[in-house]
């Protein structure tokens, strides 16, 4: 079982976040990702790794899901860093036919055979997890054994705005570990528990060890499904998912402290404040690309 102790943010050292530029998915992403991961001395040698991608729906134009080229580059990089096995997984929230989603983005063309590499987290075996944080009304959830059992968990979202949460990045991406086989499609129990607070409980219970955000092509407006594609040309890396998400917000021209769940996450799960984030790679000014948000989130725009 993965370690899940919580450290108040004021006791945490500053978090390192790396921003890299990649104009498109034809870029040599494998080298770029490996080079970026090498900044972090990740303890993955001989370990099992799960890349938790963001696969929200059928996506033949590959604009709403984590792009398979980024997933493949991450998989290749973790294997090169000595990981014993690298799995890819998600539990899509709206469509039960996970195979159809995976085929729609042609993941197999990038990864090869999926039979032992891909895990449909919606129908994985599960284990009861009691929440320590009690941010939402949820006291417990059944979560996939694959997520709880791997040594190293990587959240790999797409850079998107979200019509209910403001933004969907590495923390919101963790909704996808909640199994549809227990809670349905969509996982409506999370909405009734309060989306912002449920994000905190889930991330406290199954904390990602690392985040890689696919911001080469993002989505603005009515995301996570019906928004407009937005070219941003970045990949963002970090071992503090809160700091990574806060940095992504700043890239999108949004104020992370005004995203409700990020503000909450900043107390116990990681750093939101810019002064606590050691930013490497591209400068913020050079990659800043304002994203349109729905009226309900106008207050989040900087």
């Amino acid at each position, binding site marked *: 079982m993965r370690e899940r102790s919580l450290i108040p943010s004021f006791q945490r050292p500053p978090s390192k976040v790396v921003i890299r530029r990649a104009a498109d998915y034809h870029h040599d992403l494998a080298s770029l990702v490996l080079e970026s991961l090498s900044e972090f001395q990740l303890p993955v040698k001989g370990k099992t790794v799960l890349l938790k991608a963001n696969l929200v729906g059928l996506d033949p134009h590959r604009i709403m899901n984590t792009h398979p080229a980024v997933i493949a580059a991450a998989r290749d990089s973790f294997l090169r860093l000595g990981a014993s096995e690298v799995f890819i997984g998600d539990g899509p929230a709206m469509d039960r036919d996970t*195979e*159809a*989603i995976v085929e*729609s983005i042609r993941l197999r063309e990038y990864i090869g055979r999926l*039979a032992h590499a891909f895990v449909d987290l919606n129908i994985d075996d599960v284990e009861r997890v009691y929440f320590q944080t009690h941010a939402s009304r949820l006291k417990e959830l*059944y979560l996939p054994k694959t997520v709880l059992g791997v040594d190293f968990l990587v959240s790999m979202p797409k850079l998107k705005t979200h019509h209910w949460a403001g933004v969907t990045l590495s923390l919101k991406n963790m909704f996808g570990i909640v199994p549809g086989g*227990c809670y349905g499609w969509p996982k409506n129990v999370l*909405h009734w528990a309060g989306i912002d607070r449920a994000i905190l409980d889930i991330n406290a219970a199954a904390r990602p060890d690392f985040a890689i955000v696919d911001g080469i092509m993002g989505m603005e407006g009515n995301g996570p499904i019906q928004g407009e594609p937005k070219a941003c040309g970045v990949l963002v890396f970090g071992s503090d998912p809160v700091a990574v998400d806060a940095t992504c917000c700043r890239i999108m021209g949004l104020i992370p402290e005004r995203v409700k769940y990020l503000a909450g996450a900043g107390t116990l799960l990681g750093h939101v404040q810019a002064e606590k984030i050691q930013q490497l790679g591209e400068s913020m000014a050079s990659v800043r690309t304002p994203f349109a948000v729905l009226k309900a989130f106008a207050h989040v725009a900087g």
Partner: protein
Amino acid sequence: MEAEPNSLAESVCLHFLREAQNADGGWGFHPGSESRAEGTCWALLALIELAQTDDSETIRSGFRFLRAAQLRDGSWPSTPGEQTGCWVTSLASWVLLADPDSPKAVAAGLDWICKDWPRDGTLWRRLLVRFSSDRHLSPINMAYRGWGWTPGTASWVEPTAFALLTLQKCPQELLPRMARHRRDLGEAMLRDRMCPVGGWNCGNPRVYGVAGEALVMPTVWALLALRQQPEKRENSLSLAWLEGNIPHISGAASLVLAQICLASYGRKWPVGAPDLHDFISRSEPPQNVQVMAWASLASSTTRDWLRPKSKVGGILIDA
């Protein structure tokens, strides 16, 4: 009448299901995974529909697993250890109608289904929505209440369809008094939630003014649940949507369910449409129990699993 399975169903799918049964009598979602009520229900529906003589003990032990998994309030949980029932209750009640030893379990299940109201359509919530500035964002009629995936949440298309199919399958004399009212509301809810161009997604026909896109699986379950009124506009529009989208199907689960749906409406499988055999043999990630069960059911020409049962001389038979 014993339905005749085709070679794919017999040689691949049913064989897969028999091999995937766990020692406790249940099925998980994959071979070797923990038994769950839902996987067990789909496997049993397929085996009952296409049963061979030597399947009887396989089926009986599956029934025993389901009876043991039922909670005190009559519902079934999604996973062992969970103490709250869910949508699986519809599937388990449906399956156990075929078990002569389970009338009490079925009655308790049906009773739970009829008393399980979603939380989104309460008078209080409807009042709140009426005065909310967001009321135009998802214009659905909340007075039409179906069923949720889990108790205390909102109505969604697939659990509503599963409940309706179960209530339709059940002989009238076994149904709780509330059943007729729930059926009417559930059917109205499904029709109200259809996407503007036909078909259904999980239950959001329009979000923030943008039309929702339909998906194959919810469309199939909704069409099967509403098939007793095939002349209705929603049925014809959604069948047309489904037929038009068959060439784009990229998953085995969607493909087999589309086959079941078209066959149940007497429609022919479109010429040049994807072939199930190719999908099953290619299927990655590895085939799961549900897909193999649905593929078996797609081969049934009698479709007894969807036909209502009647009670004759104290015995339930397919009508």
